[in-house]
């Protein structure tokens, strides 16, 4: 413990040196911008800026890149809440209740809760990273394809909690999402599925173009299609900050989201994306008023936003402790280290203590910088809502197209987004919810790959899922959860969900 404190002191001396501090700040600012720009997520931001770090020393480069990463997680919530456009894949869930809060005039509160939740999650999980990195990393590596598959099945269970209305409609949308997720090269055989000769479709439908289309564009189209122009929400300064009741509602979800996000984040792969989905489902399950979810529940913003930030720090655990490229973003950051002649491996913490502890300390500083940066911005961002729709919407549309194009420089992605916009509009008119589609698109390729990798490992024997302790435990818990929800379904017949659906029918 004493040694940790000593190391941390060394780390802070690195992190607070003016030049490192400057790069952390620059990283955070760029990250926030990257997050705010619809479509451009942290991976795209880091990739674009990686070459710019080649001239710096390793510590500065890593500190700046990490700043972009968690800065983007902060920024991602902004457009989700204000305009229902997910800045990156992890803030898809924030679109639902965050935007609903904004419609009720609570945009400022939602933004503030997202910022504070992100700060708490970021800081607490850095403590986790600092104290537990080596043992946790060793545990995280035990997650191979079978464990990953079992974990992702939880993601499928989440689908059941995503709908505020009819269960059948929501499952239909989930299936549609899973089908859309099948587009692309089959990783196991190299076969092009549903690509119709378009090479770009080999990578499948990107989550970001799909989410921006289904949420953002559909919202714009729907608003434009209304006979009466909706009134512009004019936020009052007094209402910018969350009320005491809202804080109380947010506290639990922030805590749970932090722990959940950190744990999911350390697992190698792209599981960090599902951390916000799982957190949303967890909060809905625990909530005393699940019917509020989808209509502006504070917990529906606080939980997922904390989870996705905690997952960010979690992702650094295997990367720093073992030098493992545990996901796309850590892989880019490891490359940045290699460019500087630092070979990332299990000996990194011992061989490069200044880099590791400087990095850890800079994350404490960076999270604080982001909080200070973001809270005053709440007032400015909220004022964007005052812009009349005839000006606001074309501008959003332009930025969405630019952002989605910029990620891969691919026009195909823009077409996917536009197509999904139209689909989202039609589905809205038929009162289907579109969030399950996005979750399906996220989960389908990951589940399929994990399942088939597992079966390749076992030469086709399904027993592999029950011979490995972690996978077996996860599967048993998942099955138990499913049976429990079936029980209430049978016993009560009509639960709140069914009642809501009936009520909706009455409305229309």
């Amino acid at each position: 413990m004493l040694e940790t404190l000593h190391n941390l002191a060394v780390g802070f001396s690195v992190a607070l040196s003016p030049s490192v501090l400057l790069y952390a700040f620059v990283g955070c600012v760029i990250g926030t911008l990257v997050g705010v720009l619809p479509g451009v997520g942290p991976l795209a931001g880091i990739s674009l800026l990686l070459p710019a770090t080649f001239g710096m020393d390793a510590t500065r480069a890593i500190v700046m890149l990490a700043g972009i990463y968690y800065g983007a997680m902060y920024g991602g919530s902004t457009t989700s809440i204000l305009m229902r456009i997910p800045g990156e894949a992890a803030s898809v869930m924030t679109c639902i209740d965050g935007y609903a809060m904004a419609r009720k005039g609570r945009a400022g509160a939602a933004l503030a809760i997202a910022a504070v939740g992100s700060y708490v999650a970021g800081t607490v999980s850095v403590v986790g990273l600092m104290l537990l990195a080596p043992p946790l990393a060793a545990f995280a590596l035990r997650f191979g394809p079978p464990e990953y598959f079992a974990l992702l099945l939880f993601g499928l269970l989440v689908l059941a909690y995503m709908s505020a209305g009819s269960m059948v409609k929501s499952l239909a949308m989930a299936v549609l999402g899973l089908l859309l997720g099948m587009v692309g090269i089959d990783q196991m055989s190299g076969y092009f599925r549903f690509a119709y000769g378009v090479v770009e479709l080999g990578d499948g439908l990107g989550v970001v173009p799909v989410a921006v289309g289904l949420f953002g564009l559909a919202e714009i189209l729907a608003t434009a299609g209304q006979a009466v122009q909706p009134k512009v929400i004019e936020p009052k300064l007094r209402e910018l900050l969350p009320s005491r009741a809202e804080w109380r509602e947010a506290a639990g979800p922030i805590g749970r989201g932090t722990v959940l996000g950190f744990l999911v984040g350390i697992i190698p792969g792209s599981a960090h994306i599902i951390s916000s989905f799982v957190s949303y489902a967890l909060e809905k399950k625990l909530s005393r008023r699940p019917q509020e979810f989808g209509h502006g529940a504070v917990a529906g913003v606080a939980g997922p936003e904390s989870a996705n930030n905690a997952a960010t720090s979690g992702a650094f655990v295997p990367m720093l402790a073992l030098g493992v490229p545990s996901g796309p973003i850590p892989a880019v950051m490891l490359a940045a280290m290699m460019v500087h002649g630092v070979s990332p491996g299990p000996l990194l913490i011992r061989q490069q203590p200044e880099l590791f502890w400087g990095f850890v300390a800079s994350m404490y500083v960076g999270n604080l910088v982001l909080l200070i940066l973001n809270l005053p911005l709440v007032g400015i961002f909220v004022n964007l809502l005052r812009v009349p729709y005839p000006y606001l919407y074309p501008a959003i549309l332009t930025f969405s197209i630019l952002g989605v194009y910029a990620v891969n420089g691919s026009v195909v992605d823009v077409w996917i987004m536009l197509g999904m916009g139209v689909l989202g509009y039609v589905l809205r008119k038929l009162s289907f919810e579109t969030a399950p589609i996005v979750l399906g698109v996220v989960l389908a390729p990951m589940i399929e790959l994990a399942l088939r990798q597992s079966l390749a490992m076992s030469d086709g024997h399904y027993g592999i899922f029950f011979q490995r302790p972690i996978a077996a435990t996860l599967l048993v818990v998942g099955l138990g959860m499913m049976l429990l929800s079936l029980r209430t379904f049978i016993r009560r017949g009509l639960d709140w969900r069914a009642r809501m659906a009936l009520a909706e029918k009455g409305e229309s």
Partner: protein
Amino acid sequence: MAAALRFVLLAVLGVLVASSLAGAQDAFPSRPITIVAPFPPGGVADLTARPVAAAMEKVLKSPVGVVNKTGAAGAVGMQSVAVAKPDGYTLLLALSSISIIPEADKIFDRKPAFTVDQFAPIALISADPTVLVVPADKPWKSARDFIEDAKNRPGQISFSSSGIYGTLHMAMELLSHGAGIKLRHVPHAGAGPALTAILGGHVDALASGPAVVLPHIKAGKLRALAGWGDKRVAALPDVPTFKELGYPDAEFYIWAGLFAPKATPEGVLTRLRSAVRDAVNDPDFKAAMDKLETPIAFKQGEEFQRFFDADARRLADGVRKVGRIAP
């Protein structure tokens, strides 16, 4: 007066014409050159392309930029250069997958995204033989142990790869056929996940570029058994090559080379070739490659063509031996 004026005008005109003609002759490059890296930033192609671009910029005294055009395991970026205007301003930094992708397209009877003969080779920049690594807690102490065991238990020893028909898969496939063994393939989505899988102990073996596994070998997590190169890897002097062990078919390099679209004028190609030759001798370039622990293996002209042809033949053969896997 008028005559004098006419003389001056003619002289000026003459000078202008002469200079513009001279300009036309060595005008290349008169605007920025773009090198397309068909893989994401941080990968081998990207990390090689950037120092090459920086060094070429110095030689050509004209901007050279790198663009990552990713997608479909590199096919998107390679296709974009194959159909680019052949003027020398759009170049491709390709890896061995350039000869694999068209071959895999053939296997599936689909219209190839591009073919190898759509490119004119400029130069080979680096070539790194893959090495066979296994988790340190596995019983195999040598490549012979490994091959022996694989012969006794066909299809039981598993390996991860960067993806089906990917470079790391091909290396393993060439070994399997050369040594007459059968291994169990667990494809992953890229070299990073493949490395993560072996570090977690979820597979038994991996063919990998030496630089990324060196720290794990030094830390005692992985053991290197043999290399696919012509010579031993400098950083692993005790690790034999498969060639030494009597498996000459197991030869494989992760190489990076620069290409231009086929119809690029010969004059421009010559200029580019000499620029790359000077670039690889640039001290900054050498230092950058040194940090990446990637040996420079400069080849051009006939020599590169021979290397490229032999490699393409081996890989095409490898792809055909894997054949079409039922989806």
